[in-house]
């Protein structure tokens, strides 16, 4: 295995998807090694590791969409944390995802990616055949650590039960040809979550102003008073 773990600055080091042996080798490195891979807790390691992937299980915490007071949802600074209700479903219990509904979940496993590997999480094929889709933003950057937030969608015509603790996704790791920068600091955005996280948004006008758009259409709540004049809600 040691010949798989080349010098980080070796330009000839392997590319492509990590094979089982390399996954195991990376997991055997101490956590302080920038090339180390952590997946914890990992149950039944022999079965969890395929020739080129690792099975990940569904965690016990969810963010369920709530009925909003507005007739729409605008991803902005005000609503970013108001769309969801936090729910804990203990192992052994289930969560019903109604037909055509979505929930945010997370993996049971906490992972740490090496500095020179990206990850991709895919729905397990057996789960996909029940028309549950677990990821629409599957890419995981190098050095990420945390439980992965899963955007779970039931695209079938029937309610589906989800049991925390059951395998739900597959993690694929890919080499990133990247030189080691010993003193570089790690990006702290999305660092170390253990529960699904709601997305942090700014207001759309703030994002658009950065690319030179100075007029942004928005929907504002308010009332029309006796004189027929619109008063925006503060």
């Amino acid at each position, binding site marked *: 295995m040691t010949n798989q773990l080349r010098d980080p600055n070796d330009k000839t080091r392997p590319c492509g998807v990590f094979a089982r042996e390399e996954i195991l080798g990376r997991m055997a490195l*101490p956590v302080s090694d920038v090339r180390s891979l952590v997946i914890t807790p990992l149950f039944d390691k022999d079965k969890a590791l395929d020739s080129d992937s690792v099975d990940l299980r569904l965690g016990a915490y969810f963010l369920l969409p709530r009925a909003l007071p507005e007739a729409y949802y605008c991803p902005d600074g005000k609503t970013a944390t108001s769309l969801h209700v936090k729910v*804990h479903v203990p192992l052994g219990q289930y969560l019903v995802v109604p037909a055509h509904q979505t929930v945010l979940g997370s993996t049971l496993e*906490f992972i740490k990616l090496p500095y020179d590997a990206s990850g991709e999480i895919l729905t397990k094929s057996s789960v996909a055949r029940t028309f549950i889709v677990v990821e629409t933003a599957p890419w995981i950057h190098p050095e990420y650590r945390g439980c992965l937030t899963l955007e779970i969608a039931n695209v079938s015509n029937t309610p589906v039960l989800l049991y925390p603790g059951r395998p739900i996704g597959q993690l694929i790791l890919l080499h990133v040809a990247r030189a080691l920068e010993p003193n570089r600091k790690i990006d702290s955005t999305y660092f170390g979550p253990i529960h699904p996280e709601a997305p942090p948004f700014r207001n759309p006008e703030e994002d658009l102003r950065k690319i030179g758009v100075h007029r942004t259409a928005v929907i504002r709540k308010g009332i029309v008073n006796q004189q027929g004049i619109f008063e925006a809600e503060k």
Partner: protein
Amino acid sequence: MVFVEVPYSQGPSFFANLMIYHELGHYVFERLADADDRRPAFTLLVSAMDRAFGEKLGDSIKTPGTRAWAKRVLEAWTKEVFCDLFALRNLGPAFSFALIDFLSLLGLMGEDVEGKFDEDHPAPALRLREQQKCLQKGGWWTPVENLPSGHVSLMARLAGKTEPEYFFEFQETVIPAFIEAFLAIVPLIHELAVDLTPHSEAAAADFAQHAEKIDECLLHGVVPSSLLAENRASSPTPVSMINAAYCFHLTSLPKLMDRLEGQRADNLQQRMTWAEKLEAWTVKGVEDSQLLVKSADSGHR
């Protein structure tokens, strides 16, 4: 050890919730008192309370109401120290650290309060002295005594206070006999706590074995539920994780923040965010550990 599951909502204040173990101690004490077949160590404690009352206070207090009140005071102090030691032997020094934070002892201690007993509680100095003794006997103190932390130095300083510095004042009169009576009871409280928690020494040994590796995980932002040593993965106990994480909280949060882009340890808001994250990793580690144990027990690990 029976670990009480912490609700989702309490994750960010996990360390403060360690105080629950003191309250569990009250429940245990009541159960011991109500038991038909009393535990010998408890019977010895009750005898010591009666003897101490008789020898130090019995002759000087004549009225039945005052005698009952005096017994209640001694019993309340006994229960408080018992609950501290019960929690400590289940949780290790993390309980003392949580108590110091919970009572804000770091900022509030002064000569006038450190040695002061009230009707319900013994003095903070005595409580921390007995906790330190218990940690020393149980093998917990050595791994933490040199931590560069205000919590540890406060414990050491208060534990060093001498008995004449303790005082109990009632209606503006200092009554030394209460303290004398109580000091005679204290060794029996230790014995009862030890009798009820025989697993504590093994927990201390696990902590001494795993603390460094847990610290390393936390420094790299990783949940410490599975540790690598000599190419083998092992799982520390929840108690080891809690103690190592609390020590990390007290000493190493700036080191973690220094590894992250845009984070400064002198920014209070950012520091609180990472303290909460650390507590969340600890909760996750404890949950994982319980799953790994269950899985191993059922032969699937």
